[in-house]
């Protein structure tokens, strides 16, 4: 099962080529059914620059777009098991709470999970380690499974704008690089707006990633330019070049900095003048502790976060905080980063996450 989205129809050759480069996906095919009769390819998008995205209610993908199945990727091997040190059996079921706390699930969520595991174990008479692990995995999977975990790239309102936000040093730029590469390989035309005009050499860093991924980069014209204006230029370039996806990189900001959060709000408002924002991805470092919850709340409020990208899951950290983020704030985890390489990411899958944790 891959991951579907609608992109603008290209000449067929273009779409097929990148297939070879996709590293080790389970399924590396772009199926290209043409769901609707063909109409003139460029009809809808071309006049768009100042136009507010059409308020059409049934925006079922326009005929000119093609369904693309993106290759699936697995990240389960990236997660270290919770049970490397503690043995998990009925006698020390209480220790499960410790194990979960150590995975940054937080005290409340851990207590809740343990109570539930106990209840289920009692009901089913589970006793062996394998049975208990299965119950735990099942529980985590159930609680984290969401229908909206896929990137919202199928509304048909091109370009799909993905705004990437987060605190400093979580891996926003790297995540964007990986995502851009992935989408370009699937044949979409990607534009990246380098709206991190604050940190030293951030633009150069994203430029390197843009080059690697074959995306078009919109740079700030001067150092320290208002990031909102860079984002806006990004929308103009994306529309003019009929790009499928526009990814906006923003500067890292701590959620308690009012001015910086207001700046983010401004970026969002400015972008919405030209485009519909398809996704606001909050990047969270898997090593983050309970502050992750505070981050998610603050960013959700200001930036209207639609999904979480969990990065650095290739380390010893388990990223348990996303459990609470998803459960309490209702923000689904969508992407997972597992390394510094351009291919080191995957789409979040609750069962994989759970299995990785208990295996």
């Amino acid at each position, binding site marked *: 099962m891959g991951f579907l989205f609608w992109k603008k129809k290209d000449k067929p050759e273009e779409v097929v080529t990148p297939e070879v480069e996709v590293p080790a996906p389970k399924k590396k095919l772009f199926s290209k059914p043409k769901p609707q009769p063909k109409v003139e390819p460029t009809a809808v998008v071309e006049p768009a620059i100042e136009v507010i995205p059409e308020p059409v209610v049934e925006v079922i993908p326009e005929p000119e777009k093609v369904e693309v199945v993106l290759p699936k990727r697995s990240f389960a091997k990236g997660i270290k098991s919770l049970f490397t040190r503690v043995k998990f059996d009925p006698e020390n079921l209480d220790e499960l709470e*410790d194990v979960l*706390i*150590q*995975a*940054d699930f*937080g*005290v409340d969520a851990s207590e809740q999970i343990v109570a539930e595991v106990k209840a289920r174990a009692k009901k089913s008479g589970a006793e062996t380690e394998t049975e208990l692990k299965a119950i735990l995995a099942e529980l985590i999977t159930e609680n984290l499974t969401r229908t909206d975990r896929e990137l919202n790239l199928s509304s048909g309102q091109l370009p799909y704008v993905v705004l990437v936000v987060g*605190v*400093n*040093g*979580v*891996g926003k*730029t790297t995540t964007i*690089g990986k995502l851009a590469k992935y989408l370009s390989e699937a044949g979409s035309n990607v534009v990246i707006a380098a709206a991190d005009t*604050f*940190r*030293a*050499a*951030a633009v*150069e*860093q994203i*430029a*390197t*990633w843009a080059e690697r991924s074959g995306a078009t980069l919109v740079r700030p014209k001067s150092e320290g330019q208002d990031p909102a204006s860079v984002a806006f230029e990004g929308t103009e370039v994306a529309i003019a070049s009929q790009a499928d996806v526009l990814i906006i990189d923003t500067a890292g900001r*701590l*959620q*308690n*900095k*009012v*001015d910086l959060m207001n700046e983010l709000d401004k970026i969002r408002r400015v972008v919405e003048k030209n485009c519909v924002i398809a996704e606001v991805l909050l990047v969270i*470092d*898997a*090593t*983050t*502790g*309970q*502050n*992750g919850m*505070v*981050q998610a709340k603050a960013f959700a409020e200001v930036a209207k976060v639609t999904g979480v990208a969990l990065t*650095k899951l*290739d*380390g*010893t*950290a*388990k990223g*348990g*905080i996303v459990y609470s983020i998803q459960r309490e704030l209702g923000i689904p985890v969508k992407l997972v980063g597992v390394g*510094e390489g351009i291919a080191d990411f995957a789409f979040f899958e609750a069962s994989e996450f759970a299995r990785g944790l208990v295996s």
Partner: protein
Amino acid sequence: MFGNLSDRLVETFKNLRSKGKLSAADIDATLREIRRALLEADVALEVVKTFVGAIRERALGDEVNKALNPAQQVVQIVNEELVQILGGQQRKLTFAKTGPTVIMLAGLQGSGKTTLAGKLAKWLKDQGQTPVLVAADLQRPNAVNQLQVVGERAGVEVFAPEPGNGKGDPVKVSKDAIKFAEKKQFSVVIVDTAGRLGIDEELMSQARDIRKAVDPDEVLFVIDSMIGQDAVNVAKAFEDGVGITGVVLTKLDGDARGGAALSVSSVTGKPIIFASTGEGLDAFEPFYPDRMASRILDMGDILTLIEQAQKQFDDVEAAKMADKIAKNEFTLEDFLEQMQQLKKMGSMKDLLAKLPGAGQMKNQLENFDEKEIDRTEAIIRSMTPVERRQPKVLNGSRRLRIAKGSGTTVTEVNSLVNRFEQAAKMMKTMAKGAMPQMGGAMPGMPNIGGGYVGGGKSKKNDKKKKGSKSGNPAKRAAENLGIVPSQGGSGSSFGL
């Protein structure tokens, strides 16, 4: 529910007041709350366990039973223990006896090494050292570039023979850097290395090689204060893999409680030397274990608040302001400027929440309207320069115009003008030799907070006045108490 540990303990002890003494069971209940508070502050579980064990022992002794206020007593014990684990005394950087001092930075990806390298260089330069930055992160795209920009901003030379982005050998670069520094007589060499995972054996062995090549006087482990339970694993991995001599805690300007500090100190036994508190090159301080303890326990952080005020209201500005006040030239323009400085300190709510006891007035804080400051700003901005300088000219028709221009009402304009006049008057009194009394500014601050509990519109205004007067006196207060060395400049406060 209960915002912080103090609140929780107050709640836990509520029913015990009549008893006057604590039983072992009471203490256990308390310890459960402490455990939870520490875990929520991201202190590693194994550290919490040992810690709570130690507290239990002390609390079951005579100390608590004699206590008049058990809650305070327990918090006190916890605080003392925390400070002890965090290293008690502030440790200074070690310098080499001969030749250049070599400082190597190591840590996970995104912990803030490159930014820190710039800050450290700037700080050392201000101390009269001649630092050179070494670009040994050849991994991350444009890390070399970033270090060059940072070095330029700090006015420090950067040794970057390799372009990076996966090209070049960091060990060789580091080795060459030492020769370069010796030849050019730099006094300190700061080696910025690539971020690496503790479990990445290849990169850890590379870090060891760099260490061997440069034979550093300090290996500083840079860690993000937002890190969770994994802090212990990471710290152990770096301690075992590279060997560290000290710790730097970054991003402390966020609102993470920073339990990692405790985990790292306790697991590695290495002191935390510096704290990094923002992206600006000056946002860098020595680490104070006692303040960190208060922060982990969420007990209010009055000292940091004072320092924050001190930093934002910089010396020159403050002197200028004092002069203006003395000459009775304080105008609405200055008022506006001060308000903006206050805004720079962050959200009013956060600021007030730093005051001790803020937990109890959380509800009032929640109701505080941040926009109030914006409205005041709008009113002042709707005035002509003449009106700002001489509020006396504000007659009814001018006030109406201002109200329209700022989208407020005449009442609001009136109240601002009144407030301003009162503030100006008060400051004038202060300037006329009433300053020494302001040594009480610190105890005075909680009063402002206390006034808040009553709520009410007029109380709100107090706060603004606080902003317009507290910068200088607050610093004075701190100086009087000998908490902060007299110079606000980043250099001397490190006591080197």
